[in-house]
Every structure is written in structure tokens, then in C-alpha cells.
């Protein structure tokens, strides 16, 4: 009975490590069934696994994934920097105004203090 449920069940988890083990041929029977079940129910996973099986060396796919993730982080970092620069550029007058107000306030405060404490 419980095995029949597998036919109707859907799993949307993408477990890279499990895929790697499957591709390397080191997955246990249970893990292999999990991956092949995903392949049976999801054409995208099926295509991906078929594509990955075309790699002459499964280790190379892993190396590429690490490189791509590192490049992705760099891209994201650049984008964040650009967003920050854009924000600074857009808000430059606001920032200048705040600095000017703060400077005037500080000068006024110290002038008052100076006048207050100076001998008459």
C-alpha cells in the first residue's frame, strides 16, 4: 500500500549532493530510487540528470558548480555595490543637506556654549 503512494506523490526538493552521488554511482538503493522517482515525475530533473550524465568526468560538473556559484556571488556583490552607488548618487543632495544642517547645529551649539561661559 505505502509503495503505491509513491506513484502519486510529488517531491520538489533538489538535493545536489544526492544528485552527485547518483551520478558517481555511489548512491544507496533508497537514494537512487529517490532520484529516479524525481526524474520520473519532473521532466526538468530528468533532462538535467541526462545532461549531467554526458560529463566525461562527474567531478568536473562539481568543479563547474563551485566556479559558477563563486562567479554568481561576485556578480551579486557588484550589483549590490552598484545599487549602493546609485542610492548615494540619487540621494546626494539629501545627504549634503543633512551634513550642512548638522554642521550648522554643531557650530551654533559651540558658539552658544562659548558665549555662555565667556567672562563678561
Amino acid at each position, binding site marked *: *500500500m505505502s*509503495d*503505491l*503512494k*509513491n*506513484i*502519486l*506523490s*510529488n*517531491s*520538489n526538493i*533538489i538535493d*545536489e549532493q544526492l*544528485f*552527485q552521488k547518483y551520478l558517481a554511482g555511489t548512491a544507496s*538503493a533508497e537514494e*537512487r*530510487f529517490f532520484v*529516479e*522517482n524525481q*526524474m*520520473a*515525475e*519532473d*521532466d*526538468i*530533473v*530528468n*533532462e*538535467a*540528470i*541526462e*545532461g*549531467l550524465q*554526458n*560529463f*566525461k568526468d562527474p567531478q*568536473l*560538473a562539481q568543479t*563547474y*558548480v563551485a*566556479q*559558477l*556559484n563563486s*562567479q*554568481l*556571488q561576485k*556578480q*551579486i556583490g557588484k*550589483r*549590490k555595490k552598484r*545599487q549602493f552607488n546609485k542610492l548615494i548618487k540619487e540621494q546626494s543632495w539629501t545627504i549634503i543637506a543633512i551634513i550642512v544642517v548638522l554642521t550648522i547645529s554643531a557650530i551654533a551649539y559651540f558658539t552658544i556654549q562659548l558665549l555662555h561661559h565667556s567672562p563678561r
Partner: protein
Amino acid sequence: MLEKYKLDQDSQWIGILLQRYTLLLLGVCMKYLKNEEAAKDAVQQVFLKAIIALPKTNVEFLKSWLYSIARNHCLMQLRDKTKWVTISTEADIQDNSFFEPFDTNKEQTILILEKALLDLNPPQETCVKLFYLEKKSYQEIVAATGFSLLQVKSYIQNGKRNLKTLVIQKLQQL
């Protein structure tokens, strides 16, 4: 993760999200391009497109969306080489992972499923039974039945799809 991005606009979330699909996209690009370096470059391009498009797009199913970008990118590359591959703008591939219109725990559903199995054509029935009930691997089914690997995959996929349709039909008739 997408919700988090929408809330604080921190592109770090997009990075974390996309990383989950790197291997999947590499596999898909490799499947189309049949070249390891080209597949890697294609994934990089897909990421670039996704980083730009994601903030402006209301994406409901990220995996299918990324798949469409990857496939179209690969097909464009192939078209540039061969000049005759047709490109579709929408993914006609079915992502079944969001489709579960019935309660699989209901005993009634399981009973209907048991009967529906017998309505499949013999190769589909054999492959579905060997895979789901006897937990045989694709390779073991190939060895046991004499079908090719492609046939086994197809019988299981189509068998499963047909079973779902049959179960839905029978549940609606009740």
C-alpha cells in the same frame, strides 16, 4: 527567499536562491549543448539574465522559469549554429512538482490507483510496477524487460501521468 528579496531588495537573497539551481541548470544546458565549457558559459548567462529580470518579474515557480531561460538560451545558441531549430517562448515541458490534486493518504485513492494500474498498457504497467512497487532501478528494469533505457523512462513517466489522469477521472465520477 523571493519574498524576502521583495521585502528588503537585498540581492543577496537572489544569489542564495539561484545557487540552489546551479547543478540543475548545468545539466539542462549540457543536455542541449553537449559541450561542457559551453554549458558552463550558458549557465553564467542564465544567471546574468535572471539577476536582471527577477526583480522586475513576478515569478511563481522559479525552477520552471529558470528552465525556460536556460532552454531558450541554449536553443538560441544552437539556432545560431544550425539556423533551423524552432524556439518556443514558453516551456512546453511539464513541471509536475506542483500538481497534487488528491489526498494520497486516502484509502479510497489507493484502491482506485490499484485498479487503474491494470488499465495501463502492458509495458507501462510492467515498468511502473517494477519501479514503484519493487523499487528496481532504471538499469535493473532495462535488464529485466529488455526495453531500452529511454523506453523504460518513457513508460514510467507516461504511466505515472496516465495513472494520475485515471485516478482523477475515477475520483470525479464518485
